[in-house]
């Protein structure tokens, strides 16, 4: 303090670069990331916009969190896994936020149910969690939801799958696998057959974590 705060050898360019480096450091520290994420595969902007609209449609986030609590909302887009069993296997890569004690408070799967134009149909959708690797027939399955959806025309439907995450972001591996089966007269689920599919199923999870650093800072 009190020292000459201007950097004697700094020109405007140097000062701007210093500030940009400071901003990068501040953002990564604030997100608890060691380095900036390298995006493995870009998500189509249409799918991002649609998912964000759903996130907003889910209603305003519950009031301000307590000072030492941080809230996250994560949208994860499904990848389809090949399976020899009837139905579809969806895989989600949920890299848990860097905090350790994250508590998942809400988890919903968004599926696009396609129904022939003008028809009213009943589709029964059953969702189960696949534990472990391997195809549907060889792993333990935990039933999460089996629900009859009466659909007048195609559209998005949500299914709560909170038990699948059991308070955390899925298995340690960070990969969550769900097996979907739909039965009904004429309706069906649009799976994530390819990454550019604008109607890819996606998962919205809301979590909170205690923010030890913030608590200390406040004290």
């Amino acid at each position, binding site marked *: 303090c009190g020292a000459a705060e201007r950097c004697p050898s700094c020109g405007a360019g140097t000062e701007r670069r210093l500030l940009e480096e400071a901003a990068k450091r501040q*953002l990564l520290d604030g997100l608890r990331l060691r380095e900036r994420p390298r995006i493995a595969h870009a998500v189509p902007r249409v799918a991002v916009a649609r998912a*964000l609209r759903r996130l907003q449609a889910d209603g305003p986030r519950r009031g301000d969190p307590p*000072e030492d609590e941080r809230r996250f909302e994560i949208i994860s887009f499904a990848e389809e896994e090949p399976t020899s069993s009837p139905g579809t296997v969806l895989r989600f890569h949920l890299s848990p936020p860097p905090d350790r004690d994250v508590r998942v408070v809400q988890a919903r799967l968004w599926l696009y149910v396609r129904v022939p134009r003008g028809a009213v149909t009943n589709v029964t959708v059953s969702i189960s969690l696949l534990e472990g690797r391997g195809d549907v027939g060889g792993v333990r399955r935990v039933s999460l939801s089996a629900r009859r959806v009466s659909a007048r025309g195609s559209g998005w439907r949500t299914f709560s799958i909170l038990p699948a995450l059991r308070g955390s972001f899925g298995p340690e591996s960070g990969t969550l696998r769900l097996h979907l089966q739909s039965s009904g007269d004429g309706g069906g689920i649009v799976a994530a057959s390819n990454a550019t599919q604008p109607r890819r199923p996606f998962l919205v999870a809301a979590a909170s974590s205690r923010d030890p650093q913030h608590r200390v800072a406040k004290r």
Partner: protein
Amino acid sequence: SLRCSRDSALCCRRDHYVDFRAIGWNDWIISPEGYQLNYCVGQCPLHVAGSPGMASSFHSAVLSLVKANNVRTAAHSCCVPTRRRPLSLLYFDRNSNIVKTDIPDMIVDACGCS
């Protein structure tokens, strides 16, 4: 808690906007497009110690302590943030998931002398 003008010498808040496109981070940060990296700069001579941005009672407390302890008048205190707010961020993580979170105390709103 004053914004610095060009020739401010006393403790003030210097504003600096960082555009994520300018630092090449707009590919993974979806929103916002940038943020205010404000910081505190300037002198805190004794007579303003504990003043702008802090409760005035704190200021008088500091001055009476200084007199009572005969602190060297050349002492300076520090120009520090006295009010900050969170930054809401929407970004892609390494698995191309979209994460929405608030980073607490990210933006300096006011500065003052400690």
